[in-house]
């Protein structure tokens, strides 16, 4: 049996397994050394750390299978679904409200959607064990930690035949969770560049060896924005400087990326927003904004009435012709929490969402695309789900492979601190 890291670690210090050194410092704390408080505190400062957990982190080049644990088993096949209501835990505004009644009718239960604002909040609540949901929508980079931390249970794919039928083979057996042991994909997105052609010359982006250079192009000073998200914008600055794998960036490379972002304050009058691509571009507050692919598809609905929306464009340097720099791509997933009270119903709901018609209905509202075999660029454009000028915002199965792609895994604390330090340099506006 694999030793579960959670068994060696407990939020309650009294229940943790202590080393000899810990014991000595505790004994000191209790009896011997109260008058020697300062030196005691100094000694405690170097209390041995709990060992960091081993996570199974995959990349497209080196896929991994998530481990199984004896105390965390998938449900048996052929069980009857439980009574409702089904409790779904998802990002805010991340599922079409009109698909919910359809699912309720198909599954014969009520569905309650609870939302989280960011994944830190979601993981914090899930790991406290005080909430119980039946379906949870984490990003793919959270799967390793969710498995190791026992937040989610293995899936029984007998209940989810739509995975094999409809989902891209590459993501039905994804690099971060081979065999879809714990998760199935929900939507895919790339991180690239959004702009409007009446404010920005497309030739400065399309066909360029380094499309990211447009963010440092003084022509567009005052109309440029980047994502207010350091886990996206630090990698972008690293790509722009020619780094291929941001998770292995050296200290000098990170420093250079921070410097490049600092340069943008005076050079470009950069602004950091989350809604700049889908709200700011239609409003004319931005001509150019770093964007998730789904943002541009959504932006169509934010234009003032009577506007010519055909000026909107999207470019993903990961597959832009002539581009020599890398691009970031990722996907969200659907999982069943370990403490789900209605796991069978949860499996049925996941299967429902993977159905082609249902996922298309969801996409029409959401703007983030499900990785469905039947929904490629040609059909999505031909059926007018996506206008032809935004076709580059559609992600294809091939985009997840190749050398120009980087997928983000979980950041270890040291890397996160290094990135976060650069981000604070770049955004303090000295």
């Amino acid at each position: 049996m694999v030793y579960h890291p959670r068994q060696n670690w407990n939020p309650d210090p009294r229940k943790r397994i202590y080393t000899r050194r810990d014991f000595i410092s505790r004994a000191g704390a209790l009896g011997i050394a109260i008058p020697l408080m300062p030196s005691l505190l100094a000694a405690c400062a170097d209390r041995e750390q709990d060992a960091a957990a081993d996570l199974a982190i995959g990349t497209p080049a080196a896929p991994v299978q998530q481990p199984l644990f004896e105390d965390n088993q998938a449900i048996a096949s052929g069980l009857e679904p439980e009574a409702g209501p089904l409790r779904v835990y998802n990002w805010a505004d991340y599922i079409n409200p009109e698909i919910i009644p359809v699912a309720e009718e198909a599954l014969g239960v009520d569905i309650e959607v609870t939302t989280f604002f960011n994944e830190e909040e979601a993981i914090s609540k899930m790991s406290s064990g005080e909430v119980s949901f039946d379906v949870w929508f984490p990003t793919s980079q959270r799967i390793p930690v969710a498995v190791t931390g026992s937040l989610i249970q293995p899936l029984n794919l007998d209940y989810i035949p739509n995975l094999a039928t409809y989902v891209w083979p590459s993501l039905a057996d994804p690099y971060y969770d081979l065999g879809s042991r714990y998760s199935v994909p929900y939507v895919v997105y790339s991180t690239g560049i959004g702009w409007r052609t009446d404010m920005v010359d497309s030739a400065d982006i399309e066909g360029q060896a380094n499309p990211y250079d447009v963010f440092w192009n003084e022509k567009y000073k005052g109309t440029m924005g980047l994502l207010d998200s350091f886990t996206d914008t630090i990698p972008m600055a690293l790509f722009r400087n020619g780094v291929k794998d941001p998770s292995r960036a050296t200290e000098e490379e990170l420093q250079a990326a921070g410097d490049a972002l600092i340069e943008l304050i005076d050079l470009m009058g950069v602004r950091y927003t989350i809604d700049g691509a889908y709200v700011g571009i239609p409003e004319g507050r931005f001509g150019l904004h770093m964007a998730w692919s789904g943002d541009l598809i959504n932006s169509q609905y934010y234009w003032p009435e009577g506007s010519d929306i055909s000026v909107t464009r999207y470019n993903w340097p990961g597959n832009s012709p002539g581009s020599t720099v890398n691009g970031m791509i990722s996907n969200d997933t659907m999982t069943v929490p370990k403490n789900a009270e209605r796991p069978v119903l949860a499996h049925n709901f996941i299967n429902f969402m993977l159905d082609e018609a249902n996922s298309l209905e969801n996409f029409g509202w959401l703007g983030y695309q499900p990785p469905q075999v039947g929904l490629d660029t040609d059909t999505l454009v031909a059926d007018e789900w996506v206008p032809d000028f935004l076709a580059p915002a559609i992600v294809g199965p091939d985009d997840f492979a190749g050398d120009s792609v980087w997928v983000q895994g979980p950041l270890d604390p040291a890397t996160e601190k290094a990135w976060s330090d650069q981000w604070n340099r770049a955004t303090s506006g000295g």
Partner: protein
Amino acid sequence: MPTNLQGGEYDVVGQKRFVWPSFALPGVLWLVALFLVPFYAIFAVAMGQPDPVFNRPQPEWNPFYWDTAVFAEVVGDLFGGQLGVIALRTVGYVFIASLLCVLIGYPVAYFVSRKTGRWRWLWLLLILAPFWINYLMRMMSWVNLLSPDGQVNQFLAAVGVANLPDWLSGYHFVVILGLVYGYIPFFILPLFAALDRIDEATLEASRDLGAGSFSTFWRVTLPLSKNGVLGGLVIIMLPMFGDYYTPTLLSGSPRTRMLGNTIDQFINQTTSQGAVGAALTIVLMVFVAGLMLYYLRTINQATREARE
């Protein structure tokens, strides 16, 4: 010896000794549950370590295990590092915005309390109206007004101004304007109450003794309303120090980032750096508590003087 309504004497030493103090109990419980415990939790997070599985900050409840490294780093960075720049900017914004609130809010409160006569209810209603609308909504309306093709620029274009600026591209004064607009009703109201309490007779006495209208204002009204001004300032300055949505909505530029944005960044965007956010929160609280102590001391003094 004080007497009760029936004319009998109070039993000061007996059981009634605990009756009146016990009225403070709900408040004390409230304070402990919703202030002291959360405050200790923030402190414990600032002094704790991330857990090894989720890398999330874990509160270290036991003071023997407190790790002051993060705290020391934050304090070091505040004096001479990036955080120092943001802290100075935040203090600057808050002081300028507070000063503007006094300069704009005082005449308004004075006018409403003294000069509105039978229409006073209408003026009060107008001052209270912003309370009915969510702060975020009020900032959103400024985004509309100030956007490149918003009403402000439309007006400027109509009167022939060329080279219209993009107000939302990171101007200090736009963020300060947002702070003033957002918080000024909270300043006017307590000040109005203080001005309204000033006994008309004291003003008449001042006039009778030969003071002119300016002198009366300077030597009677202003000193008597000092506590109202300070109270209003406390009410608006505390939330201003923690504000982060005003600069986010009205600018988004690194040039206008405030401490609240940085705390939000550490707590909401990072997984393992929550302790930094917690430490920063505590530093900010200590600073704000300093201002609060000054306020309490002044109020105390004024109360003593009034008794004497």
